[in-house]
């Protein structure tokens, strides 16, 4: 059973732009969610909110008591959103100034609103790349922007793996397992990563600082969902790629680290934490040092994690 994310606005062009962005991600949450968009005059003036903000790049998020809602403020230009307690709709106010630079508006503001809205549907965000190896085993690589997730995801796609995403995944509880849903987006590579892979072209991304490739561009396929049985915490290190098993408790602590949103909204935090716990229990967990030899040995990861 899947639903969709609706976009409502009096401004049809604005609604169409946001709807196209959402459609491109191919997310089908289990309940209907909505973005309610309003173009407003600046400056935005709102009710006093003394809650300590949770800082993420370019945004501030306030949640929890006493209001119980979630409020997201974009720091680059006047834009804000509110999700009322228990609501499945995000009320978003945008200004012309915010709309002037749409890529960062999408990537650092609307993406955060989406993450917090999907949480209401039981989908919990984790910074991770998702992949399915040629043996049909599902992998989740969790880590930050410097951990090698994107380059590894692109490399695996060139070897014919199915790749779901390179950065934003959502954990979903099923009756007997935890699944990870991929947010459809091209793998975004820095020039160094692209050079390592010997890739040319790609779509300009992140203001031209990165080049982006869908898995299909690289010879792979797209995996919309995986059921991770191998959990990897990668880091770029040394001359030889290696893998060391990680106890489940340490893996859980790592997952908490890469799931920043777990601390928000007390009524959802336990559900999120338990989901990370279930994932750490269902998977074999490894700390993997990624090194240049990985690029020359296509079965190396599968050999290290038999």
């Amino acid at each position, binding site marked *: 059973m899947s639903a969709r994310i609706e976009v409502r606005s009096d401004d049809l062009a604005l609604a169409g732009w946001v709807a196209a962005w959402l459609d491109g991600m191919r997310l089908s949450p289990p309940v209907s969610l909505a973005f309610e968009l309003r173009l407003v005059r600046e400056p935005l003036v709102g009710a006093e909110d003394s809650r300590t903000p949770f800082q993420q790049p370019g945004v501030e998020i306030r949640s*929890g008591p006493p209001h119980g809602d979630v409020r997201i403020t974009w720091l680059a230009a006047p834009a804000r959103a509110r999700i009322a307690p228990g609501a499945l709709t995000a009320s978003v106010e945008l200004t012309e100034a915010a709309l002037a630079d749409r890529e960062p508006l999408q990537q650092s503001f609307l993406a955060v609103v989406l993450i917090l809205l999907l949480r209401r549907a039981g989908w919990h965000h984790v910074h991770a790349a998702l992949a399915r190896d040629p043996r049909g085993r599902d992998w989740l690589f969790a880590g930050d922007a410097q951990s090698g997730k994107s380059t590894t995801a692109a490399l695996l796609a060139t070897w014919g793996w199915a790749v779901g995403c390179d950065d934003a995944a959502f954990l979903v509880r099923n009756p007997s397992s935890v699944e990870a849903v991929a947010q459809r987006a091209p793998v975004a590579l820095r020039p160094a990563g692209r050079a390592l892979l010997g890739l040319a072209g790609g779509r300009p991304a992140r203001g031209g600082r990165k080049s982006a490739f869908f898995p299909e561009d690289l010879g792979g396929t797209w995996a919309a969902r995986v059921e991770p049985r191998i959990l990897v915490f990668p880091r770029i290190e040394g001359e030889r790629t290696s893998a060391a098993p990680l*106890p489940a408790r340490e893996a*859980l602590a790592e997952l908490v680290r890469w799931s920043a949103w777990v601390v928000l909204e*007390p009524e959802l*935090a336990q559900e999120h934490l*338990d989901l990370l*716990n279930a994932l750490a*229990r269902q998977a074999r967990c490894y700390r993997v040092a990624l090194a240049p030899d990985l690029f020359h040995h296509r079965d190396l990861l599968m050999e290290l994690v038999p």
Partner: protein
Amino acid sequence: MTRRYRRHPELRLTALEGEGVALHLGTRRYYTVNESGLDLLEALASPKTLDELAGVLTAKYEVTDAQATDTARAFVERGVKAGVLLLEEQP
């Protein structure tokens, strides 16, 4: 004066393989806890005295009352300092 300890209401706890991870939503810090720490945190879902906490340990582990009290005291002192536990004093 009776001193009782309890978990901070913003603490969330999850257990796996006999150990656990505690997450403080207010400070946004997380802690890994070993088996005995998990036992104590689970017991602290409701207010407990130091003696009651020591009892949790002696009931499960082969330790003397004094060892259990020392362990429980060290745990609650660290917990209070970290803001993970609250101390209530009642006449």
